[in-house]
């Protein structure tokens, strides 16, 4: 392969990684007293009049409620996704605690135009604010109902961490919502963070043992350590990007890879090591730019699609997941009072499962690659030291809410198959928990409908032999990357269910998504659980 072929696609990973994961939530904008003003906007040429009400609850969470003049009786109660827990000016990260009332401005406006009331809380603290968000959402719901007694039905929905808090709200406070919509659902903290931190541990172990990864100091020193770690990770990603450009089949290792000398001596390429890290931690092998299905026309087509594209996807996805993982872990360590991550007994080779057979070639073979990585990752290898949690911190961390699957009102999920931050296994876990809950008699059968969002069959494009770098992910790929029409389809299904008290039938869902070739409903579809659950 020519050395220049990948160049276009592999630049600017670092900047994109820092901003893209947290860009899901949109900023919008509240005292114990709710203040309302009249407002209006134009939606598709139609003037929509509404009251915009703002306030701050007794915990300090700002909230907003929008009540259209032509109210249809249903309020959409929205919970936003994860945001930075603090500002990090050095990395260009800012703090935002403003309320969000819908997944996007466009979705909010369309819903308002159709007569739905909208409401959402900003939450008084950010980061992994699951507990705080549940209370903030309870408060904004209460404020809305007090202000507008005409509210008849409530649809609680949210995305990413907001989806988890929405589901937690519904499970802990049955009756608060008439229908529930977890969109791109995040798994519980233990499951999500284990994936991110396994990836980071892999980066550390394979590429730079000086990365701390977890167990940060308190106060300013800890923040400094965090920023240093992110810098080191970015340096690895940048090095690998360049190396994959120059020598894609046998890329070299960074000089910081001081523990992996045996692997380097054995001639294993860094691309296989990165793929191993991605597979063992559950990073998707389909990313914004790389579909693992396409290659440039010509003799390289199959080799690119089979050997290189999955690795490039892990690089693109992993760089974003790692940044989120670093910051979310720091925040959760502060909350837990220490290190909760523990991989002392993780069998990383076993975690590969069928991927060991599927990606044998890209991992540089069974006896050399898989066996070499397996030996390196053995928990007895002093060159790949495992991380042990602080028992007290772990105990406190484990008290964070876990999905129960207790569903008592119609619930509609939408989940992308190639979401690299909240993989489809999170929704699958909800499905499994719900099945158990039904069996236990805690939930009512037939209330959960799952809509799956698949990527296009192929989407990597090439200029000549060089893959193009996408700045915007195609639908089905990326985090909470739904279209407005998809959000609206789910919202309408939820609203109808809130009124009827019944989950939408298969026929109804099929009709709602019939014009969207990227959506499907299959009761038999089963996504792989997050590695933590396997």
């Amino acid at each position, binding site marked *: 392969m020519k050395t220049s072929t990948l160049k276009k696609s592999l630049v600017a990973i670092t900047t994109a990684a820092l901003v893209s994961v947290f860009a899901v939530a949109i900023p919008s904008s509240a005292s114990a007293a709710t203040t309302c003003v009249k407002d209006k906007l134009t939606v598709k040429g139609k003037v929509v009049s509404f009251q915009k009400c703002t306030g701050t609850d007794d915990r300090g969470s700002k909230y907003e409620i929008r009540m259209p003049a032509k109210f249809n009786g249903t309020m959409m109660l929205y919970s936003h996704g994860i945001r930075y827990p603090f500002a990090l000016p050095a990395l260009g990260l800012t703090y935002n605690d403003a309320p969000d009332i819908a997944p996007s401005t466009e979705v909010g406006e369309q819903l308002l135009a159709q007569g739905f009331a909208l409401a959402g809380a900003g939450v008084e603290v950010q980061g992994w604010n699951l507990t705080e968000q549940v209370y903030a959402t309870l408060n904004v719901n209460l404020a809305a109902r007090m202000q507008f007694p005409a509210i008849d039905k409530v649809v609680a929905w949210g995305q990413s961490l907001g989806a988890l808090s929405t589901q937690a709200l519904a499970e802990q406070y049955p009756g608060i919502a008439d229908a529930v919509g977890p969109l791109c659902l995040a798994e519980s903290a233990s499951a999500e963070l284990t994936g991110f931190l396994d990836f980071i541990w892999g980066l550390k172990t394979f590429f730079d043992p000086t990365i701390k990864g977890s167990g940060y100091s308190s106060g300013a020193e800890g923040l400094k350590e965090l920023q240093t770690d992110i810098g080191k990770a970015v340096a690895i990603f940048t090095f690998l990007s360049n190396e994959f450009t120059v020598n894609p089949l046998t890329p070299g290792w960074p000089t910081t890879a001081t523990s992996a000398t045996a692997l380097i001596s054995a001639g294993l390429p860094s691309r296989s090591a990165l793929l191993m890290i991605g597979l063992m931690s559950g990073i998707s092998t389909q990313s914004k730019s790389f579909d693992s*299905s396409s290659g440039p026309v010509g003799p390289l*087509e*199959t080799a690119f*699609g089979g050997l290189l*594209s999955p690795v490039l996807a892990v690089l693109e996805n992993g760089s974003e997941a790692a940044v989120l993982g670093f910051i979310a872990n720091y925040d959760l360590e502060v909350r837990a009072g220490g290190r909760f991550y523990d991989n002392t007994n993780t069998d990383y080779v076993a975690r590969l499962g069928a991927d060991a057979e*599927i990606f044998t070639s890209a991992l540089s073979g069974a006896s050399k*690659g898989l066996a070499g990585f397996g030996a390196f990752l053995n928990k007895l290898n002093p060159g790949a030291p495992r991380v042990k949690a602080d028992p007290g911190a772990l105990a406190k961390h484990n008290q964070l809410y876990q999905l129960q699957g207790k569903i008592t009102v119609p619930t509609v999920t939408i989940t992308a198959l190639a979401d690299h931050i909240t993989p489809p296994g999170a929704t699958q876990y909800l499905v499994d928990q719900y099945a158990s809950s039904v069996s236990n008699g805690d939930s009512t059968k037939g209330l959960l409908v799952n809509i799956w969002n*698949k990527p296009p069959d192929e989407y990597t494009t090439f200029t000549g032999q060089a893959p193009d770098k996408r700045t915007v992910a195609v639908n089905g790929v990326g985090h909470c990357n739904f279209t407005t029409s998809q959000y609206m389809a789910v919202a309408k299904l939820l609203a109808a269910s809130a009124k009827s008290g019944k989950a939408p039938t298969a026929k109804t869902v099929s009709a709602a998504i019939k014009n969207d070739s990227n959506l499907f409903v299959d009761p038999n579809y089963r996504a792989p659980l997050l590695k933590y659950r396997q």
Partner: protein
Amino acid sequence: MIRNTRMKRISFVSTVVVAGAMLLSTVPANAADPGVTATEIKLGITSPKTGTVALSYGKLPGAMKAYFDYINANGGVNGRKITLVSRDDKYLPQQAATQTRNLVLSDKVFAIVGALGTATHTKAYVAAQLAKNNVPDLFVNTGFSGFDDKTKYPTTFLVLPSYAMEAKIISKLIADTPTLKPMPSFLIAQDDEFGKDGVKGFALAGHKFSDTPILYPAGSLSAAIAEGALAKINAAVPSYAKPVMVLMGTTDSTALILKAAEKLSLTSKFTWIAGSVGGDANTLLALGVKAATIDGIYAASFFPDAKDTTDQYVSQFMKINEKYNKGVTFDNVVLQAMNSAMLTVQALRAAGKNLTRAGLMKAIEDKGSTFASAGLAPLNYSATSRVGYNGYWFGQLNATGELKPVGGKVTLYTTDSATATAPVLSTYTRKPIPKNGIPTN
């Protein structure tokens, strides 16, 4: 004239080199299974139609469709016409998963037939939930014995003998051939399920190579690596010996190794055993291996030769190909594809008019071993076995690529993938082809 082409697995080697480098009984019969109407049975296949591997196996879906078209022109199956939906997987696992899911969810096929490859089908089987959806997965073109795991792959039926079986029969060939038995022997194999299955087979047979097998990851074998391996082996054996060199890899990898031998003037130094996959003479020649090099190479097959017009199956399939697959040269891939299509028609007929997915799989378990087929080895379907053919005969290629049976006549051995039981001489006699190639079972 018999050749040894089989559709097992292909690696990415050639492209890299060019670059320079149910439990069915648990699911009740359901008359409303997708893909079946009063007039149609919709089947699906994923295979490489584009990309480098399509050069070898691009004919597969077209040849299957040609046979189905022939059956349709002769009344179909119980009044139903067969439609084959063919999707291109490029021999890539992700694309195989995507397209198999499309076949099940979008095209709503009744069954999958003739899917190709180990890594591709491993991913596709799970991604498309073939087990949970109870989709019959018929006559998969891979020799990976792992698919014969009814618990893991409850809807899958293999057709090719396994790599482990092949290794056991190669071991017997070496042991039974006076010129081979006393010689040092070596193995160069793909470092994946292909090679692992092979290594397992040799171990089961008790065959000990003279050195540790050289395993290479598919996709990274280069001329330099091949030359280095051959040079190392050559240096380790006495000059008077003519070692046995067993190659268990795809045809493109085999070609690379043979060309390395040409460069090092070692072609006549070894007795080459290229097996069933790597011994595809047409492809070896097309990849630039000299005719003189392939002359004498041992290869394996379980079929008659695709050019043997005296063979009733070959003859009939040729006629069908001429009319329904115009412009496509009849070869081993076409033979294999039409044979699998004929097995499919027999399975559909055996399942009866009230066609269900569960009924189809039950029919193969109950009656599949009795189906007429071009294979010279028996089929082994039963309630407990998803194994298709289980045997091979060996021959030697000549300079024009013909595979001549060792000893002048086809001698086929059968065996299994899991035990140390030695291969046995087969007494199997295949059924005559149904009249005009149209099953009436």
